[in-house]
């Protein structure tokens, strides 16, 4: 292993080493504060390491056949780390209630991050599966972490069983693909079987299909989305945030890596007639169907949701549908733009989700950990301006309205779609965003509504005191600032993405 390999792998190594040290730390002294600080330190170190790789790496580095470190992966890992740091901070407010020491939670968190890190850097089905399972199994533990809550058993079981199904589907798919290609690496110069017997290509198709089903489950694309709202609702809020950001980012990035390393899936060879090119059409069509269904189903089902987490669950389904548009690339030249679009959109999505969940967790904590309905945010704007602004910026970003990052993200997506001439997807995106505005605007209007102090006078918490600590209000204003500044000067991020 050369020094370059060590260097490029250092973010992952830091996390893995940190995990071992955390175990030792627990053996030495069980203190929640200590393990929190230690976890955050590890994450920050890994963040710095990946930042320095982004700045120094010019080319992708193949570290063994399993892992290929490139800057797209590094950037995605940075997103994962930022989200995980927020999760760590937020869970510290949530884990204070009981007398137990919650070291396990932070260990699981580190495992999730490790899994996500392996995923975004994998170049091999084995690495992919390893990362996938690390992520899923650790998440199952976290989803059911608050044992005394009403839904914890239901949601963690749901997640466990469906996630296991998805991974077995995926494993079977990988096996089928392997049976045809003879290699588990993503980038294999194989596939001569355009000419060979049709049975081979049936297996390959089945393999691709099963593999994509496994991925679609994790990305909660329709029609594999059914677990999402229940698990989102049942999981503790910081864990929901983890599901919504880390798991989605990692899975999407690995999907893109797989997809773009298999040009026969999407590129139409010029010299061949369309008929012999069933591969390209079927995989692309499958993805278009996923995309269209997710956009419509996600947005339509979010319309009537009252519970904020369920609403965000459905909206995340729609957003993954939008994101699939970047896979609709017809020529290898557009791949760079597709990566930029995906990473910009993911950053916007992660930032917006972070903002919303941060407010959710804070208001929930103030109200004594009850399940929050949208109406509980009524009049928030007049009670606490910075929290409300955070929600507004987050929501507008998700809705894709100018001034926010989300709009630029949508602009990127539309650029990709126009270049690929996917007019039906564009039409669905427009319809989907139109439907989406209903529920996004409803939240914003509720923020501006009359304060409902009198309405629930029976509950003691009604006159909630929204005083924030300085750390929280600082990070809130930072999130608002970043969301707006990247909406106004997207170059700050765009130029980084161009140079990745």
């Amino acid at each position, binding site marked *: 292993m050369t020094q370059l390999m060590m260097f490029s792998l250092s973010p992952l190594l830091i996390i893995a080493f940190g995990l071992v040290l955390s175990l030792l730390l627990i053996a030495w002294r069980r203190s929640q504060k200590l393990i929190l600080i230690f976890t955050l330190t590890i994450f920050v170190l890994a963040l710095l390491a990946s930042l320095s790789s982004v700045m120094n790496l010019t080319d992708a580095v193949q570290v063994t056949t399993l892992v290929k470190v490139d800057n797209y992966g590094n950037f995605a890992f940075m997103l994962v780390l930022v989200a995980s740091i927020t999760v760590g901070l937020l869970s510290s407010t949530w884990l204070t209630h009981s007398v137990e020491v919650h070291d396990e939670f932070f260990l699981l968190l580190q495992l999730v991050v490790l899994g996500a890190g392996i995923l975004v850097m994998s170049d091999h089905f084995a690495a992919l599966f390893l990362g996938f399972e690390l992520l899923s199994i650790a998440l199952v533990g976290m989803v059911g972490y608050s044992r005394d809550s009403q839904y914890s058993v239901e949601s963690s079981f749901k997640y466990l069983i469906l996630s296991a199904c998805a991974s077995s589907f995926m494993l079977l798919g990988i096996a089928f693909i392997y049976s045809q290609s003879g290699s588990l690496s993503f980038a294999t110069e194989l596939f001569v079987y355009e000419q060979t017997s049709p049975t081979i290509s049936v297996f390959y198709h089945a393999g691709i299909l099963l593999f994509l089903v496994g991925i679609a489950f994790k990305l909660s694309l329709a029609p594999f989305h059914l677990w999402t709202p229940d698990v989102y609702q049942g999981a503790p809020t910081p864990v929901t945030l983890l599901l919504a950001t880390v798991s989605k980012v990692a899975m999407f990035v690995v999907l893109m890596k797989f997809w773009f390393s298999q040009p026969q899936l999407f590129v139409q060879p010029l010299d061949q007639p369309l008929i012999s090119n069933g591969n390209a059409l079927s995989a692309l069509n499958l993805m278009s169907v996923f995309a269209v269904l997710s956009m419509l189903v996600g947005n339509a089902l979010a319309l009537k949701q009252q519970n904020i987490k369920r609403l965000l669950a459905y909206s995340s389904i729609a957003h993954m549908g939008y994101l699939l548009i970047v896979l609709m690339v017809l020529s290898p030249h557009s791949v760079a733009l597709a990566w*930029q679009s995906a990473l910009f959109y993911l950053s916007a999505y992660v930032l917006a989700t972070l903002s919303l969940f941060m407010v959710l967790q804070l208001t929930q904590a103030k109200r004594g950990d009850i399940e929050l309905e949208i109406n509980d945010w009524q009049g928030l704007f*007049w009670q606490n301006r910075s929290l409300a602004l955070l929600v507004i910026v987050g929501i*507008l970003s998700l809705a894709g*309205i*100018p*001034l926010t990052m989300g*709009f*630029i993200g949508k*602009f990127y997506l*539309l*650029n990709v779609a*126009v*270049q690929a001439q996917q007019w039906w997807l*564009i039409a669905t*995106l*427009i*319809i989907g*965003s*139109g439907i989406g*505005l*209903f529920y996004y*605007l*409803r939240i*914003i*209007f509720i923020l*501006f509504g009359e304060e409902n102090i009198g309405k629930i006078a029976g509950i003691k918490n009604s006159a909630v005191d929204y005083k924030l600590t300085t750390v929280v209000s600082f990070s809130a204003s930072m999130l608002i600032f970043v969301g707006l500044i990247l909406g106004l*000067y*997207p*170059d700050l991020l*765009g*130029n980084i*993405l*161009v140079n990745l």
Partner: protein
Amino acid sequence: MNITYVMCSLLLGGALAWYLEGVKVQSARWIALLTVLVVALYFAVSVITSGLDFTELQLVVRLPWITSFNIEYALALDYLSLVLVSLTLFLALVCVLVSWQEIQSKSGFYYFNLLATIAGIIGVFTAVDMFLFFFFWEVMLLPMTALIAIWGHENKHFAAIKFFIFTQVSSLLMLVAIIAMAAIHFQQTGRVSFFYADWLILELPLSTSFYLMLGFFIAFAVKLPSVPVHSWLPDAHTQAPTAGSVLLAGVLLKTGAYGLIRFVLHLFPQASMEFAPVAATLGVFSILYGAKMAFAQQDLKRLIAYSSISHMGFVMLALFSFNAIAYQGAVLTLVAHGLSSAALFALAGMVYSRVHSRDLNDMGGFWHSAPRMGGFALAFAAAAFGLPGLANFVAEFLSLVGAYQRFPLLTILAALGLIGSAVYGMVFFQGAFHGKEHGKEQGKKQNEASTIADLSKRELLIFSSLLVLLIVIGFYPNVVLVFFQKTDLITTITSAAGGQ
């Protein structure tokens, strides 16, 4: 000459008003008034002293903005935008003045939204980078929606959501068209550009340009509004606070017409020529349908809203008849309708503040107690139905004369709309100011309804300034028309269409 200063100072003034309202109650309106006055003065002085010839687009500023897409921050002015910006600033004063007493709660934030809307509208009228145009187009929506949703009447959330979704979905179509244009520019020149002047010289095949033109046309037709997509307007107008209605009718609708002139006609002359019969038919349909619906309304603001639809139909008809006289008529209609509808909505707001109802059934006999108000109401109603001597007469006359040369039958039908407008104008005036005093029928409302206070000095100032302008333009339309004598628009379009 710096439009950026104008917009920034409006925003800053709004922010200052918001802040100072918390320090000293009722200071916000003074700040807002001062801001608008100073900005208007600055604008007037700098236009006069600039010594530029605004018959052509004069570039004011051009800076790179989003370099990854070659998007620029480019603003330019010609007489069209100059006239519309002046109208905007004048109506901004009216808006601040009509809100003087009406807005009592959260007034700091109210004036911030008001001024932000105005800044956005000025941006729309001056942007010549298409992305920037779209940006402002969306940005002006946000504070406008807030104005409706927070300070509106009983059904405000529904109206605000409807308003926002109509415009947002249609403008996404425009965004797709904009991106497609940029992609075409890339194909033809090897460089992405969103700059308006670059697009003017593109060679577009007719079939492509037809679809692109439709993308723009739908967005502008929704804003104008034209008949099949008008249904947001009555709701938004009815529910908005008075200043919101004034701003909507006076300026926001004009952004649709401005877009038609600046972008649809200039960028796609041939396609517009092809599309003209459809557009003109839509225009005539709007005229007649708007007049008919206005006649059937009991709600005063709904009545005026439908009359707006009717009047904007004239603009559509005139613009798509490609005739110099009709074009002048269309521009003059924009100004005249901006003034007269603003006056009518201000009147409706003043009546509402006195009797707390918009229902014509609750009105009647106001002339006795408020003769000055009645006089002004008569004058503005007369302006709306095009009494000679007032601006609207000249405008509609020119539109019809011009349009007749191209669409004789449609123009004859459109002229029927003038009769319709006289009918609903009289219905409004008689219902509110003549007839029995309403209070005498219902004893309990006696004190409120039978004697209403006449105009205060502030209201007198608003009305007389609007009326003076209407009369001046009515008798001497050249104050506006002198700027539109050399209309190269018509020649370019006819020459382009002649070359087909």
